């Protein structure tokens, strides 16, 4: 016995409900404390990081650890200094907070971060001042 149109529509609606969580746009990320000189640089950086950030993290860390290569592109601290606000007396942004740059997306996709088990998740006063 063929299913009636009503049942068809009901099934489609039910399945569509599961699509509610699907949003191809990433969540709103906290603004960086420093900006690139040109808009194009910013766009390139965002595109590169969206595609490659995990690959960069896992392979550049080995180059630093085993070969002592410490360029700005190899430094996690360089990322943190830009993307995480310096702690102040009023507010400290930790990696467990939802607005932390890394946590925003990682909470959204439920992928556990263990970087900050060891690495500092916020800039230290000295490096931030040096960056200025």
């Amino acid at each position, binding site marked *: 016995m063929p299913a009636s149109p009503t049942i068809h529509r009901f099934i489609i609606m039910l399945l569509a409900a599961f699509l509610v969580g699907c949003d191809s746009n990433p969540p709103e990320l906290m603004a960086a404390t420093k900006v690139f000189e040109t808009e194009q640089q910013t766009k390139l950086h965002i595109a590169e990081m969206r595609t490659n950030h995990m690959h960069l993290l896992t392979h550049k860390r080995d180059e630093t650890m085993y070969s*002592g290569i*410490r360029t700005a592109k190899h430094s996690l601290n360089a990322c943190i200094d830009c993307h995480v606000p310096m702690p102040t007396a009023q507010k400290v942004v930790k990696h467990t907070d939802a607005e932390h740059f890394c946590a925003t997306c990682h909470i959204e996709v439920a992928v556990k971060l263990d970087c900050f088990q*060891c690495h*500092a998740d*916020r800039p*230290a006063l000295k490096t931030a001042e040096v960056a200025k």
Partner: protein
Amino acid sequence: MNRVEESKDQSTNLIDRYRRQFLGGLGITTAAVTLAPSVLLREVQAKPDDEAVTNEVRWGMLIDTNKLPDGGDSMVAACKKEHGWGDDPNASPAQQSQWVRKVTFKDKLTQHETSLPVMCQHCETAPCVDVCPTGASFKRADGIVLVDKHICIGCRYCMMACPYKARSFVHEHLENQQPHSPRGIGTVESCTLCVHRIDKGEQPTCIEAAPPKAAVFGDLNDPESKISKALAKYGAQQIRADLGLNTGVRYWGI
């Protein structure tokens, strides 16, 4: 005694000359490195950030215990401050990390008491490197023994293997670590010879904090370095020399 005074003079010249050379030569150093890195006589010079370390250099330390009236307390305090270990909130005293500690020993026959700071000895054939199942405990090409905490599974076998009890295990969640010194739960840690400073051309923080003339840091492979000259002239002792590990940390007066 003759040897002590001689070494006092030697060490004064050693450290002062080193300091002058280092501070004064910064400009020349950076320029020269890009032109002819192998020609320059090296003290501690900053290698370029994008260049891999090689085994041309072997970093080492020489500690003169006779010149340490506090037995190394200031060195221990400086290390604590630099790396942020020593007051993890939940660990019991026996579980607290100790990258370097002051050890006092008194010989049973002579009753002579000596105090010295003991940290990772950065052995040439380190037992901790041999036993690590994942290879997380490794020796960098320039002789520094490190823990790659990315692949450390926290089995603590290296802690069993180290004859100097140099390694500590992190027993709790940590936060607000020093950015230049990552340390975290479930991994093993030990003295890194301040590798983050060495790579920038500075010296380990314990050397800087030590009383004048008490500790030297430098390249053991360079016969012209201050440390090599001091070792060639007076020799030095290793802790547990019988194990044949050829440590990078040597002592006078133990």
